[in-house]
């Protein structure tokens, strides 16, 4: 090996600059990929925010003064109720009373009923945030020309009232309270069902199961189940919970008579099955992360397998299991397809009152609103998307905080 096969000095520097060129090219490609990803995210957010705020032109069909001498927003609850009683036809009033007794409704609900049924606000046109900012003058000119009686107002469709009002057939009076409550009920049932079962299955697979053929097949299938399209779980839920176990899920077994199998319970159980593989896999990872030395320490002082799992493995895996469950919840909250199949109601203005209620959920509501022709529904859909996104971000942030907070040192 007398000969030196490596390039020296100048020729080495030439090869070196070649190596750097290639490196820079790759770095540039990766950076481009990142920029594209960020741009799509920004576009998504822009699209949502653009719809949720902006100018709206509307007319009153009847002036408030026709009904009350005082401004409407200063009326008390009983005055509002009286107003509705005297001005609505008795049939219409009875129908509302049947949906939910009028005396039990909130004042804000009655107020929006007055606006909706008596004043009858009629939305003429809505504009996006971009248009509202860039073309404010044109919009004002257009409105005064086309709808001389209309009022023009810059509105945020996302308001506290939007969160606390139930569904309505008029976009101006529609809110997401029913949908949020429906989503929470559904996710609550899903997690009550899936967390114990999922954790149990994970403990069995990690701590008890032999590494034999059957268990490997089970493991592989659990991993695959996590990737099954959600509509398939919807079909499953329809076949099993809605139809086969209708007596249970409709509540007729427990004396509830006014519903069929398309209840929150069916939806919650379907979602539970959908997130079950996720919870199992996450719990398995959390259990795997508990070091073996800890198990050996427990066995070494004469613990049984169960004592080791209960006193040491589970407490130390718990933060990880909870993190996984929160992520599973955020998946369930965003799912739409299974709910359509299981039969979420697209229009329902009554809050769910228990597991046997009919229900709707946020994504269903958004889907339903975006398919409507009137542009004001697109605006409240955008507002509802923001609500959903904030809900999801909160859940994910909680998961991250939990994970960072309870990091174990071992």
């Amino acid at each position, binding site marked *: 090996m007398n000969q030196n096969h490596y390039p020296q000095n100048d020729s080495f520097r030439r090869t070196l600059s070649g190596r750097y060129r290639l490196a820079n090219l790759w770095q540039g490609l990766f950076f481009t990929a990142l920029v594209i990803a960020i741009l799509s995210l920004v576009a998504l957010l822009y699209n949502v925010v653009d719809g949720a705020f902006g100018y709206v032109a509307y007319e009153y069909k009847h002036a408030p003064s026709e009904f009350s001498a005082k401004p409407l927003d200063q009326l008390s609850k009983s005055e509002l109720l009286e107003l509705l009683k005297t001005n609505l036809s008795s049939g219409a009033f009875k129908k509302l009373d049947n949906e939910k007794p009028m005396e039990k409704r909130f004042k804000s609900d009655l107020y929006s009923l007055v606006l909706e049924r008596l004043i009858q606000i009629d939305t003429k046109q809505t504009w996006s945030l971009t248009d509202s900012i860039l073309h404010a003058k044109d919009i004002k000119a257009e409105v005064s020309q086309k709808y001389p009686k209309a009022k023009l107002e810059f509105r945020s469709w996302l308001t506290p009232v939007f969160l606390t009002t139930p569904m309505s057939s008029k976009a101006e009076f529609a809110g997401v309270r029913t949908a949020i409550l429906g989503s929470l009920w559904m996710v609550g049932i899903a997690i009550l069902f899936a967390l114990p079962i999922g954790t149990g299955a994970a403990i069995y697979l990690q701590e008890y199961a032999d590494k034999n053929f059957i268990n490997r097949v089970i493991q592989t299938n659990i991993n695959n189940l996590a990737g099954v399209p959600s509509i398939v779980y919807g079909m499953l839920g329809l076949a099993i919970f809605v139809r086969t176990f209708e007596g249970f899920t409709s509540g007729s077994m427990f004396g509830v008579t006014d519903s069929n199998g398309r209840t929150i319970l069916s939806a919650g159980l379907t979602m539970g099955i959908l997130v079950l593989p996720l919870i199992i896999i996450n719990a398995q990872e959390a259990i795997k992360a508990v070091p073996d*030395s*800890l*198990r*050996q*320490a427990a066995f070494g*002082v004469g613990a049984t397998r169960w004592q080791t799992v209960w006193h040491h493995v589970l407490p130390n895996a718990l933060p990880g299991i909870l993190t996984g469950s929160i992520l599973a919840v955020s998946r369930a909250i965003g799912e739409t397809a299974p709910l359509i199949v299981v039969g979420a109601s697209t229009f329902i203005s009554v809050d769910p009152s228990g597991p046997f209620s009919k229900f709707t959920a946020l994504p269903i509501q958004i889907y339903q609103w975006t398919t409507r022709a009137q542009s004001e529904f697109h605006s409240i859909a955008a507002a509802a998307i923001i609500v959903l996104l904030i809900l999801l971000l909160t859940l994910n942030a909680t998961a991250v905080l939990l994970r960072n907070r309870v990091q174990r*040192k071992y």
Partner: protein
Amino acid sequence: MQNNQPEYAIETKNLFIFYGSFAAVSEVNIKIEKQKVTAIIGPSGCGKSTLLRAFNRMNDFVPSSYVTGEILLQGQNLYGKNIDPVEVRRKIGMVFQKPNPFPKSIYENISWGAKINGFKGNMDELVEQSLRGAALWDEVKDKLKKSAYELSGGQQQRLCIARTIAIQPEIILMDEPASALDPISTLRIEELMQELKKNYTIIIVTHNMQQAARVSDYTAMMMLEKDGSRSGTVIEFSETTKIFTNPKDKRTEDYVTGRFG
């Protein structure tokens, strides 16, 4: 123990330890004397730890591992049909290579093992007694409620020893207990072993031959079989002084004098 007849704590008879079809340890016949320190030495991968773990059935957790032959504790085969491994580990405690206290308080580290084994006496007393036994009491008596992770590595290892003696085993197995510790902590563990052997039989695996020479009364020299089967066995077993000064086997001599391994 007035007579000269030695009393044995545990003995192996024609012991083979398999992983699947591979015999990791073959044909071990040794008798471990009561209240003595017995060291197991030998090069890496010759099955020292495997043999040690066979004594309290820790190998049971390795899938596909099994044992032929017998390990007799007071005449009873630990691998007999009616023997529960949990009961074996209750009688034969273990201290591991890396200190592995529970992520709990110092107090709970000791009390947990006692609790699950149905200890009915005064727990505070037991904790103090065990910590004193492990020469740790004076250092931790004011912070029993603190996490065991706040202790240094050497203190953690002594806590693990205290945890082991709290369940009052007959034999304590130590798997390279000082290999993760600094020399001063090592020294303290070695001194502790001399204390402990007054009440317990100790079997220790060590890589460190000086340590074996310092602490042990008997030494088992392990080596891979010459037939190329990659199976380890005890090639020589006698008093430590004999192993280090006058070994019978040429391989032992080469090993302890540092000529290989």
